[in-house]
């Protein structure tokens, strides 16, 4: 732990604290990322995209401790037939995981993938590096350089069931860096489920290459641990007529920064990104989304809903960039917060940057309290104030949850949300 001696430069302190030995096929991508990281340095509050979120706890060399949450619920997605891949504090748990084999796909671990994975070479650090412009994302470069593990999934045929990455947080000082790459060959479909808090502090990158007419479905729930911190990035590149759908549920967590950086490079592609979060007290949640339209007739949707109380803070920075040749773009963005008291805060920065002339782009952002008329209506039917508030809270979040296409998953998420809201009051 020489990190302490190098206090003067936080970037070097972080690199030292997480040093890994580079070898094999990912070596050059990691070296390149390290170089880029050193050049840009870790974020600080002077950076435009870190104005609303203090990066300190994500950039200090050692993770702040985070108490472990005693979860007594059955695991999310537990009833589903899925391929389980378990990481405990960022360390792969072979015993708890299924065999990493599923017809139609190959799965390898980043830590043990020795052979020269040609496909992964074209993804690992490539999408991330591409996503560094025009907005720098140093924590993602850090991840590419120093990730200790992750999964590399190549989908050559549509698998029979979803892949479920399960993250468990068992140590109050764990500081995990995981990097996943997924490549969908043309015409394939895959669903990626992620759940759990991963570590006291978690830095995660997913790079997804969605081939022509392929479809990527992503649903994640970031656990219920109150004190954990997370900085996550998803980088996606979408081919012709492909689909990318991602939904994130965040309940609790003292610090979350979720970045999604997508580029629609093939005509007629669709990207839907949605998130629902519920924060109470010490809670800071930041969704930063950047969608670039670089092809004709593509559609993108961003739907983010935040329920905040007792001083919780929500941040939304969403951008749609429509390049000059991306005619017939249909872009939509909505970010809304429900503030349950006057101590809570929602900070939103919606951005549209459009160079094509034949596009439809709309965006909206609102903050509001519980609708008093609706509350009275429910109470006048005999529903207690607490239950009525929960119903209206769910009603508010539903628009984001509705973005989940699979009916069973949608219902499971809504059911969990209902339970959590009720427990919060008891």
């Amino acid at each position, binding site marked *: 732990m020489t990190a302490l001696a190098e206090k003067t430069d936080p970037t070097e302190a972080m690199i030292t604290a997480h040093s890994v030995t580079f070898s094999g096929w990912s070596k050059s991508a990691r070296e390149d990322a390290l170089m880029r990281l050193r050049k840009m340095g870790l974020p600080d509050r002077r950076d435009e995209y870190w104005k609303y979120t203090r990066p300190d706890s994500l950039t200090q060399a050692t993770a702040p401790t985070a108490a472990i949450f005693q979860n007594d619920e059955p695991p999310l997605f537990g009833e589903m037939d899925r391929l389980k891949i378990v990481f405990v504090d960022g360390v792969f748990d072979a015993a708890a995981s299924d065999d990493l084999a599923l017809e139609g796909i190959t799965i390898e671990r980043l830590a043990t993938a020795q052979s020269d994975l040609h496909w992964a070479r074209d993804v690992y650090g490539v999408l991330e590096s591409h996503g560094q412009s025009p907005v720098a994302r140093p924590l993602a470069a850090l991840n590419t350089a120093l990730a200790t593990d992750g999964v590399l999934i190549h989908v050559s045929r549509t698998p029979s069931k979803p892949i479920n990455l399960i993250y468990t947080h068992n140590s109050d000082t764990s500081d995990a860096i995981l990097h996943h790459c997924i490549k969908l060959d043309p015409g394939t479909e895959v669903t990626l489920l992620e759940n759990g808090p991963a570590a006291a502090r978690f830095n995660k990158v997913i790079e997804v290459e969605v081939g022509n007419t392929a479809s990527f479905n992503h649903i994640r729930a970031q656990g219920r641990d109150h004190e954990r911190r997370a900085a996550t990035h998803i980088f996606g590149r979408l081919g012709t007529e492909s689909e990318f759908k991602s939904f994130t549920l965040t309940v609790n967590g003292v610090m979350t920064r979720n970045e999604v950086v997508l580029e629609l490079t093939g005509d007629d592609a669709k990207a839907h990104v949605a998130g629902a979060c519920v924060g109470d007290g010490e809670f800071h949640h930041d969704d930063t989304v950047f969608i670039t339209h670089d092809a004709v007739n593509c559609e993108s949707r961003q739907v983010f809903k935040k329920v905040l109380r007792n001083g919780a803070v929500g941040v939304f920075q969403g951008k749609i960039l429509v390049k000059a040749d991306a005619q017939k773009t249909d872009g939509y963005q909505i970010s809304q917060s429900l503030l349950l008291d006057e101590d809570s805060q929602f900070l939103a920065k919606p951005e549209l940057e459009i160079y094509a002339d034949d596009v439809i782009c709309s965006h909206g952002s609102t903050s509001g309290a519980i*609708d*008093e*008329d*609706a509350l*009275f*209506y*429910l*109470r*006048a*039917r*005999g*529903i*207690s*104030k607490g*239950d*009525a508030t929960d*119903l*209206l809270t*769910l*009603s*508010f*979040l*539903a*628009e984001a949850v*509705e973005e989940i296409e699979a009916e069973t998953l949608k219902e499971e998420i809504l059911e969990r949300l209902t339970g959590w809201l009720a427990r919060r009051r008891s």
Partner: protein
Amino acid sequence: MLNIKNLNVKLDDEDKQILKGVDLEIKGGEVHAIMGPNGSGKSTLSYVLSGKDGYEVTEGTATLEGIDLLEMEPEERAAAGLFLAFQYPVEIPGVGNMTFLRTAVNSQLKARGEEEMSAAEFLKVVRAKAKALKIDADMLKRPVNMGFSGGEKKRNEILQMAMLEPKMCILDETDSGLDVDAMKLVAEGVNALRSEGRGFLVITHYQRLLDHIKPDVVHIMADGRIVKSGGPELALEVENNGYADILAEVA
């Protein structure tokens, strides 16, 4: 059943007196109608009875079967048997009509210390009652009042009333925004619920509704008071001559 004595009400945040001594007694099995010009305080009366925020009772009492209504939370009044059919039913996106109905029914049962209804039992009952009001499965599944026409919203109010089986029903301009057919349907729904143990207070502008829901007593309200009471013929008088004559007569 419902007993209102010298009820005086002002707005919370303005010095404006709306009700200026309302006296009203409705017995079980009776249907009373309140008519009156705009701004006379009819809707305020229904809100104050059901417990909406924003009003201050400065004098008087209101009891339901001897229990003080004014001290209770809105949900407690509902559980005690008071029901208000809203003039403008609220749209609630994301909450299924069925979920809402079941939550309401079970909340009241629980508050009264009775056993909650199972999902299967509830479904059976709600389907039968919905059918009578021509409310189809789709309307039950959709979010509360979302995309409902004016008539559908009012029928949905009556369905809630039928499911909750209140002792005292207040209908606040339930006829507003209804065409003749929809009004008949709503009136049939109300009439089906008329019984010895249940009182009704029907607030309306028009005599038309009272052709379908025959009142025992008609009250005329003006400037925060009930200025005249009588039989059904009073409603006809209003219909034919307007309020001016009556108001002049009592002035």
